[in-house]
């Protein structure tokens, strides 16, 4: 029997001033909304991508255009035989996703037939399909970059805002129309590898080592750190917090001034990125330099330079060795299947795309809308530049169309900020799953991106999760490490992690990458073999376990834990409280 986790308080009021028509957008199968009675009948999982919570604009646009148009549309056009994409609901500011099942056997059979035509077509044309989509998006991106917002007449900001949203929506169409077939191909290959007796821990390795745009970005950022060291600025970085680094460097003068000029030039090329996925509420690195400085500060803590070329060579060697090892254990007939699957997956390389597309889509796709909203805020005399992000879409269009931004709306924004902050602090207590929890799921995005599998589904339903001391998950990157756990809600807290500590979080995304240069291990609630943490963990040689389900619940900040990335096991060795007690011990032993 499926277990039902009641929705309870989450079906109550939503953002102050919310009206159902605020969610009146086109959708394909199921519309997004706050949780409502009856939602218990479906399965809902807490989406790790937005652990900060989402503002009204961020919540409605992502859920409508990303999930309810993007995934549902792609699930129809591929299609997925037994699934119709992902829909979503909100508990406070927190997004829960849900796979929409197709249950009519006749429909499933018809959809399977269409998949039989469309998947091979996609795989044969993958490169041109992705590159055409990417180039289209880059052209639109260039259009927005060519606009000097300061010169746009206020009357035209509404048009710009609509265009910016449309850019995001189109990006999500391209995103999921590529992601679904790539994942289906990957998981079919993965399943056949498992059936042929191949150690599934190796499957990710078969596809690693290809250079991506995000890796290029990391190298360029690292080059800046090397420049800072050469300019004798290491101490400045060591002595100051990232948030005050620009000030400190300016005050330092001399070589620091030149370095800052280089840094700003660098930002113009690489700084159009947020530390979040498709979240209009999060600034770019240009707007807020803190994380860029933080990453450079982290790089400079390490005594030795990171050798990117050696790491890349090593990744390729590891890949080739893993492939050879796997092939040698297969019969010739199996090798034919394996070689075909490997070739198809190397051509349409999901781990590569997963990293690369983040650069072109997820990390920057909301920036034109954000900037237009900020410009509008300036024009209407808002209290803060991000006020517009606390409006719902129809309210935003009204303001852009000239409706005075005052009295009621202004105070609603204040109330909604409080609502956002309130739910932000409640993130760690949000149930990982709600509604009717199945034993396993079939949607490839849920399986691979969210790491939802029978084991993680069992783990999140454990009522005693907070007291568990032995956790299991996907063995994502090999090796064993022991250290102090740092449990982070979002990458905003990355500065709390000291070298040699263990990162514990719901999930990581590309902006967490530099942290892998200093951590001893990583543990995530979500994510499969090909999640960001898994890929980067393997590349940096950091033992990593993903899809634990309850890592952020069971592991306390400061606990001493052991991470076994070879066997997918995490053990809590000593609770932070005990460690603190031991610290007062006269022996002084940790």
């Amino acid at each position: 029997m499926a277990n039902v986790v009641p929705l309870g308080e989450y079906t109550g009021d939503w953002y102050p001033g919310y009206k159902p028509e605020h969610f009146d957008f086109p959708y394909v199968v199921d519309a997004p909304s706050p949780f409502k009675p009856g939602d218990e009948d479906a399965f809902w999982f807490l989406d790790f991508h937005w652990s900060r919570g989402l503002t009204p604009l961020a919540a409605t646009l992502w859920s409508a255009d990303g999930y309810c148009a993007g995934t549902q549309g792609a699930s129809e056009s591929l299609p997925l035989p037994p699934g119709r994409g992902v829909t979503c609901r909100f508990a406070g500011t927190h997004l829960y996703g849900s796979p929409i099942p197709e249950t009519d056997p006749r429909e499933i059979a018809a959809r399977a037939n269409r998949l039989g035509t469309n998947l091979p077509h996609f795989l044969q044309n993958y490169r041109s399909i992705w590159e055409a989509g990417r180039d289209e998006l880059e052209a639109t991106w260039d259009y927005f970059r060519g606009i000097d917002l300061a010169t746009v007449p206020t009357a035209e900001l509404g048009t710009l805002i609509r265009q910016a949203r449309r850019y995001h929506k189109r990006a999500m169409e391209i995103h999921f129309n590529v992601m679904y077939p790539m994942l289906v191909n990957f998981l079919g290959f993965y399943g056949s590898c498992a059936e042929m007796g191949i150690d599934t821990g190796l499957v990710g390795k078969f596809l690693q080592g290809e250079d991506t745009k995000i890796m290029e970005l990391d190298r360029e950022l690292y080059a800046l750190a090397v420049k800072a060291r050469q300019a004798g600025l290491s101490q400045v970085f060591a002595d100051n917090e990232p948030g005050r680094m620009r000030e400190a460097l300016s005050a330092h003068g001399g070589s620091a001034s030149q370095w800052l000029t280089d840094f700003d030039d660098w930002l113009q090329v690489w700084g159009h990125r947020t530390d979040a996925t498709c979240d209009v509420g999060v600034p770019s690195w240009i707007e807020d330099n803190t994380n860029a400085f933080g990453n450079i500060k982290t790089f400079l803590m390490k005594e030795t330079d990171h050798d990117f070329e050696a790491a890349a060579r090593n990744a390729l060697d590891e890949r080739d060795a893993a492939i050879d090892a796997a092939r040698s254990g297969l019969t010739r007939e199996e090798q034919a299947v394996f070689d075909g699957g490997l070739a198809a997956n190397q051509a349409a390389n999901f781990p590569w795309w997963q990293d690369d597309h983040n650069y072109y889509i997820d990390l920057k796709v909301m920036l034109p809308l954000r900037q237009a909203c900020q410009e509008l805020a300036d024009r209407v005399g808002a209290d803060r530049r991000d006020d517009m992000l606390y409006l719902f879409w129809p309210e935003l269009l009204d303001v852009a169309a000239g409706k005075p931004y005052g009295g009621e709306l202004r105070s609603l924004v204040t109330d909604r900020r409080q609502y956002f902050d309130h739910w932000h602090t409640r993130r760690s207590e949000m149930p990982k799953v709600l509604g009717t929890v199945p034993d396993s799921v079939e949607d490839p995005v849920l399986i691979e991106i969210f790491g939802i599998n029978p084991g993680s589904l069992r783990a999140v339903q454990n009522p005693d999760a907070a007291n568990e001391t032995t956790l299991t998950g996907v063995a994502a990157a090999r090796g064993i490490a022991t250290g102090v756990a740092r449990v982070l809600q979002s990458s905003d807290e990355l500065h709390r992690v000291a070298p040699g500590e263990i990162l514990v979080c719901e999930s990581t995304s590309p902006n967490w990458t530099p942290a892998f240069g200093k951590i001893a291990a990583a543990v995530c609630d979500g994510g499969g073999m090909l999640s960001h943490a898994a890929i980067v963990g393997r590349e940096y040689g950091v033992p990593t376990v993903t899809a634990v389900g309850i890592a952020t619940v069971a592991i306390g900040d400061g606990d001493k834990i052991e991470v076994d990335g070879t066997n997918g096991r995490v053990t809590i060795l000593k609770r932070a409280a005990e460690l603190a007690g031991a610290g007062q011990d006269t022996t002084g032993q940790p």
Partner: protein
Amino acid sequence: MTGVVVDSGSVVWVDAAEPGEAVAAAGSKIGRLADLHRAGVEVPQGFAVTVDAYRRHCADAGLDPRIDAILAPLAADPAGPSEAEVGTASAAIRELFVTTPMSDALVAEITEAYEELCVRCVDVNVPTAVRSSATGEDAADASFAGIFDTYLGVSGAPRVLDAVRACWGSLFTARALAYRLRKGISHHDMPIAVGVIELIHARASGVAFSVHPVTGKPDRVVIETSWGWGEAIVQGVVDPDHIEVGKTDGRVLRYDVAHKAIVSAFDFADGRVTEVEMPARLADRRVLDDEQIGAVVEAVSAIERHYGYPVDVEWVISRHRRAGDGICIVQSRPVTVTAQEQAPVAYDPVALAQKYVFSGKPVPGR
């Protein structure tokens, strides 16, 4: 009866059994060995005490009515006999076989055959494997596999004669009795033959399957092996080396060396093969080299081709075997694993997605 030894059909030689009659006369185990011999497979020397000989013994020595008298109350009970009742009946019948002597003619005939075997093997009192070879055993319904007795290392005519009678008695082990009672089969419908087979001096032995015994994958040969005789493997008391070989190209796909704690070795004092502790220096050593693996694969593949269906075999590498020689096959039977679905021959992303992603079951390995 004149006392003169004539060919009364009590003994049939492995290398002389008539095709088509071998299994009927010598039971399935020895009959198959005769079959393999004709097919050119290297098998040990030996003969079978035939089904007829067993039948005549039961009739002439008056065993039939005594056995029926013991079994009658068991079959009469509509609720079925208790385990204890079956055990008591089994012990009583087996004791009958041990205490009831063979006719002089049969003794003479088996003794003569054994002496002939010694000559063929160029040995005095050649050690033998005395194996039950029931009719119906090892057939498609393998429920009887391993249920009847085998004695390894039986040496000298008197011991061979005793072992033959003990094998006859093993048709009435408690397990066999209980099985037949449950299925309503009469022991008269499955008489037994007994093989007396040269005991190959084994350096290493094992089993080999022409398909994967668990998954049914037909693209590989699976071998399990240890030092010494194969009894410890067949009985499951030793964890054997596990080898998988691709059939198409003969490539070793995996070789897992096990810690082999027990070995079936010949006990010269006792004159039989027995299970003893494996010498430390052998326990973790890889048993087969690539040449030996190739010879096993060739033998099991040839037998599969001969029968036209998957088989498992028991094989022995004799101490005297040199590289290039064949492998001695001591037993063969059909594999009872259910054949798997057709294995894919090329990468088919649609079929694999349907099978592994959209099947309603978790993706394998997750």
